[in-house]
């Protein structure tokens, strides 16, 4: 109990230190990325990126490998130069500032701990570079090792630590410099699943405790949703959407985002009429339905995609009578998969497109059997109308 109290007290010193050491204007974004392009020869790694990272938030950059997220992070850290555009750190253009003069620190994918130094000296590397007095270094590292729960390991060498412990040393080594933002490059990918999930919560706890902005790169959408306040979804060098996990899940901006985050039914439709907030579209099977118009503007005759999440799709044996309001599509049930809380039903519509419906396992609809002809039904309000993927 005494230990816990002691720890809280020292934790508070650290917090107040951070508050005094790092008084950034909360109205200025910590990082702003303005029209940033990055080319390697003829290869475009990042194309016209524009977004802001707010002070104190847990921000993630999410996308499949090769989407440019790591390059983006390396440009923020200063390891890569921008080809054009500018990156501001605390409002100041740092595009031409070398990494050792930028007030950001990185947790590397393989941690990059210095093998010839013990835990204490690894963590002390940054403060010593800045010429901070040795007794201050000692005090700060003592506190930081408590935050990451490694106070008993300060004399160990990196090769005497487990993967999770190395991870926490890397974290302490970066955070002890009180950076404006902490950059994390897929730091959990080297850990096994169980440890990874524990570290996700641990990272979130530390971030909340010390209030530093985290910029987290990952290809794992579940990880991004679990941890982030906001996420930038990237694909092929472009930032497709920036938003909270809920916004991205419920209101994806593009077909790519809809498909990359969770499962999505993407149904091709043609636009019949554009009526401002609502657009009339023609579904497979010929039904016309009015759905909310998304961020894109369509004219009559345009091809579009209707996105609906599987959990919003219901299955009925008969077509509902209020078919003017509900979206209805005739389907064949091709597979029923029991997944505990939900039944995952794979469906095929008359145009041959695949659909997925997640049905509450406790409310199995009458007549749901393999090969049954049924109606997939959903509320038009649950729909997101998106432009078709480029090239389609």
């Amino acid at each position, binding site marked *: 109990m005494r230990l816990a109290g002691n720890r809280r007290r020292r934790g508070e010193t650290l917090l107040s230190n951070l508050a005094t050491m790092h008084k950034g204007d909360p109205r200025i974004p910590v990082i702003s990325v303005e029209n940033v392009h990055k080319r390697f020869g003829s290869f475009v790694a990042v194309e016209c990126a524009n977004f802001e990272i707010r002070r104190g938030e847990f921000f993630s950059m999410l996308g499949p490998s090769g989407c440019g997220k790591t390059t983006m992070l390396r440009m923020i850290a200063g*390891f890569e130069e921008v080809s054009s555009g500018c990156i501001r750190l605390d409002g100041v253009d740092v595009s031409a500032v070398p*990494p*050792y003069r930028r007030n950001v620190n990185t947790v*590397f994918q393989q941690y*990059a701990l*210095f093998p*010839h130094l013990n835990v204490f000296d690894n963590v002390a590397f940054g403060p010593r*570079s800045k010429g901070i007095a040795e007794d201050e270094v000692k005090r700060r590292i003592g506190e930081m090792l408590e935050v990451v729960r490694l106070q008993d390991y300060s004399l160990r060498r990196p*090769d005497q630590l487990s993967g999770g412990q190395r991870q926490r040393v890397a974290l302490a080594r970066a955070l002890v410099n009180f950076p404006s933002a902490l950059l994390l490059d897929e730091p959990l990918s080297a850990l096994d699943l169980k440890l990874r999930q524990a570290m996700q919560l641990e990272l979130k706890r530390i971030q909340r405790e010390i209030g530093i902005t985290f910029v987290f790169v990952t290809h794992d959408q579940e990880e991004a949703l679990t941890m982030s306040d906001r996420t930038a979804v990237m694909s092929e060098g472009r930032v497709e959407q920036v938003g909270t996990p809920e916004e991205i899940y419920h209101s994806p901006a593009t077909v790519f985002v809809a498909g990359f985050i969770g499962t999505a039914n993407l149904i091709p439709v043609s636009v019949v009429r554009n009526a401002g907030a609502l657009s009339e579209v023609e579904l497979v099977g010929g039904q016309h339905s009015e759905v909310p118009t998304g961020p894109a503007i369509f004219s009559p005759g345009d091809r579009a995609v209707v996105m609906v999440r599987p959990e919003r799709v219901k299955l009925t044996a008969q077509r509902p009578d209020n078919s003017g309001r509900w979206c209805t599509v005739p389907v064949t049930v091709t597979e029923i998969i029991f997944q505990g809380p939900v039944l995952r039903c794979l469906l095929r519509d008359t145009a041959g497109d695949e659909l997925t419906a997640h049905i509450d396992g406790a409310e199995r609809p009458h007549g749901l059997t393999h090969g049954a002809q049924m109606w997939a039904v959903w509320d038009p309000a649950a729909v997101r109308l998106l432009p078709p993927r480029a090239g389609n």
Partner: protein
Amino acid sequence: MKRVNTMLGAWTAAMMVFLYLPIAILIGFSFNTSRLNIVWQGFTLDWYAAIWRDAVLVKSLENSLYIASVTTVISVVLGTAGAWLLYRYRFPGARLWQTLIFVPMLVPEVIMGVSLLIFFVVVHLELGFTSIIISHVTFCFPFVLVAVQARLAGLDPALEEAAMDLGATPAGAFRRVLVPYLMPSIIAGALMAFTLSLDELIVTYFTASAGTRTLPLEIFGRVKKGLDPTLNAISTVFILFTAVLVVATEFLKRRNASLVSRQQQS
């Protein structure tokens, strides 16, 4: 099976005798009372004491140690810098350079000696310590370079970035992270350079002046005039010294290798 083992054992023993018997005889007779290296008369340490009374011999030993030390320092700087350059930067002809660096390790020493002598004559460099040291560096620094390169191959490139990320300038990152990382290979390379320089006879023969005779040169010169047990004694000292250096080098190399493999496992 047993027969094969016995034969293998005998073969090994014969090889060891062939390799080490001359050295054993040399060491044995350095403790012989007789001036002649043929008959054993009794045990003495007089010849070891005689080394220190022979001013010319001591001077040549001093010369050798001085040349080997300076050669080692220059070789370490050149070898480490060269290895780093070839690792870090991609420049036209990098692979050609890589190959050219091995040439001094392979060229016969006589040819090295002659070509260096011609070179020094052409550039009007008077023979002496400078010419010997330059000659020794040409074949010693590639050994340092190769040792450092082997270690660099296992380097995580993120280490240098991590150092800069934590506020170290490129020079600071080199000094605080890379040099400590490379240190085992630098020491191994330095020991190798020191041993090679200390033992060198042929190249030195071509590039030394009368006043800068090294120990191998001095021994070589005296043996032609007749055998002297003092030479046995100083040779024994020399052999032991070299053997210690070689063992130390091997030990460091092995530790180096196990360090690298441990890092790769983790």
